[in-house]
């Protein structure tokens, strides 16, 4: 039987949602009615325009509370990845590599294209890591190369070949005008054009990256906010040993 879930304000299934947005209309009762009708058009009922403030003569800011009858079937929802699959710890990963791979795993990473945000990839790769989770450089059984920011895709690929990398990590933080999609797509296309796609485990990461998005773009995995080195390392070593 389907388990339909709906937003919850203070009573099961009341469907309450808060919204805010701007409309290119002057502030006044006509603008408020426009806001109400718009929210209504999204299928909401009990639409209360609780705030309307002029931002200029042509733009008005609205806050609305409304309720929805829509629900979705929880039983059919699949997470971006399996929440129950736990990552190994650094020590477990090192032990795993020693036992099942028997040599150091080589990981090459960079923040590519025009993107200059190194903090994310550093959090995964650099010695000191992030939030008291050490980065890959600290792993005894991992050889990690962090090329930094604004690295052209082709340069990253060449470097990975030259160092016989097992996995390539690509960080993309800026998403404006879909620039991350362009850069990530180009990366996979370049690999494929050179017949190298099969050679590496390819992983994308960044605050707006999901596993699904990465898969769609041809990566083996994608990681978003709150990722730690062990999550990535666990994925790599499991994938390397998967038959």
């Amino acid at each position, binding site marked *: 039987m389907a388990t339909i879930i709906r937003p*919850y*304000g*203070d*009573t*099961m299934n009341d469907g*309450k949602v*808060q919204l*805010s947005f701007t409309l290119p209309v002057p502030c006044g009762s006509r603008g408020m009615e426009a806001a109400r009708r718009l929210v209504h058009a999204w299928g909401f009922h009990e639409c*209360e*325009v*609780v*705030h309307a*403030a002029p931002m200029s003569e042509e733009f008005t800011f609205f*806050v609305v*509370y409304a309720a929805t009858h829509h629900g979705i079937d929880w039983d059919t929802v699949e997470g971006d990845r399996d929440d129950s699959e736990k990552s190994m710890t650094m020590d477990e990963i090192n032990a795993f590599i020693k036992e099942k791979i028997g040599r150091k795993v080589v990981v090459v990473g960079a923040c590519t294209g025009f993107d200059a945000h190194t903090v994310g990839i550093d959090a995964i790769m650099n010695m000191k890591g992030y939030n008291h989770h050490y980065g890959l450089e600290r792993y005894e059984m991992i050889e990690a190369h962090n090329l930094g920011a604004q690295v052209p895709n082709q340069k990253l690929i060449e470097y990975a070949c030259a160092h016989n990398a097992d996995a390539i990590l690509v960080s993309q933080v800026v998403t404006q005008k879909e620039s991350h999609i362009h850069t990530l797509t180009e990366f996979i296309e370049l690999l494929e054009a050179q017949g190298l796609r099969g050679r590496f485990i390819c992983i994308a990461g960044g605050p707006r990256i999901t596993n699904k998005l990465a898969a769609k773009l041809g990566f083996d995995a994608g990681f978003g906010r709150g990722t730690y080195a062990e999550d990535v390392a666990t994925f790599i070593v499991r994938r390397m040993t998967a038959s």
Partner: protein
Amino acid sequence: MRSKLNLPQDKIDRARALAASICAPVLEFIEQHTTVTVERATLRLLGADGASPDGIPVPNLVVDALRDRLGEGVAAWYANALLQTGLEQAELDRRIAEGFSIATLPMGDRQRALELASELAARNFARIDANRAFRQAKQEEYKGRNHSPLLYLIVATGNIYEDVKQAQAAALHGADVIAVIRTTAQSLLDYVPYGATTEGFGGTYATQENFRIMRQALDEVMERERRYIYQTNYASGLCMPEIAAMGALERLDMMLNDSMYGILFRDINMYRTFVDQRFSRMINAYSGIIINTGEDNYLTTSDAFEKAYTVLASQFLNERFAYAAGLQPWQMGLGHAFEMDPSIKNGILYELAQAQMAREIFPEHPLKYMPPTKHMSGDIFKGLVMDNMFNFVSKATGQGIHLLGMLTEAIHTPFMMDRHIAVETALYVMNGIDAIMDEIEFRPDGLIVRRAHEVLDRTVQFLEEVERIGLMQSIEQAMFADIARPRTGGKGFEGLVPRLETYANPVEDRLERALGLAH
């Protein structure tokens, strides 16, 4: 506590002396009267329980039956019924619920009846003693795990089972105190509904069963979080003493319990309220409950900047009435609020001044500080920031009990997510300025210091005026909250009864003895 405001002690003393002199005639009046709800509360503390099939509680049935004899006190009559019928108490209550009137029974040995009443009281007082001991033990066990100030959150779904979910989520997230808001207009009911309830408007009925259900839910979280979770309700309205009695029996920890709120904000008769408040407060005092007074309400009907002194004046009066009912300073959660118009230049500094002033004048009292409400609007973003400036001021001045503001205050009773946002942001601010009380000084003679002095001055003047006119007449003249209430007007006046010479109340005797109030 080092003083930052250098308020003149003689002015503070003068205000206290004025409060004492203002309250004295009222206290005299109180002693000479009882009310229907004082008698019903007495019955509850004798163990009377149950309700008629159409929901009228046994204490009401008894008091209604004895309507013409209340001046003697009902305790003897109730015990007399037990003696006369020879029934078990539960059985007697059941019969009363079914329609049996104890007024039909003649009085036997009144002395023996009073002795039996005393024994019955002893049983229920033992339960209260145990509750108090349990609370103390748990607070000792989980010492240092509550926030300072205590974070106080309201739930108000109207359905006790929904309330429980919301309360547990809030407590898990950090709330120290959960208050279940009462349904609209319960304060005007001259009885307390019976049993678990699931329908209320803007709040949930205060019933003894609802108290029990919430207590159990909060105790669960307490054990899990190893943090004592305070439960709060309203000993307010037409049934103040009865709700206090129920709270004592179900181990509530705080009660909204003001000496004048009902008069001003619920149009309850002033004589009735004054009598009721004392009895309810004695029960709260005995059971170790912290009361919360309602000075914040003044600022919803009058201007918070102009009328700041009415808050302080009311605190002095509430304090005086509280002492007279045996409450200790640590039980006096005197109310005040952050309610100034957000467009006032330096408004936040004036709030800081007043909060610090209250802190210095009532150093041992766990002041209850209320968030902005009146000037909250549909602009939830600005509202959230106002709430957090309130959080800032509260932490900076060491308030005791901190009612978290809701960004949706102007819109609806809190959604679960509203409460979540409130806790999350308050914890950020309060942790970020943890040591601020010891760190910040005010410029002597700056506008903060001057504001506090002005409010105190104005308060003394105001109390002088009230003393001259008399408290009851001052209320008639709208000197409090800009609201006028005639002496014999308002709800519940008919429930006021002069005590006869023969009046006897073993519950009251016991309370007064224990609280050192015997005269």
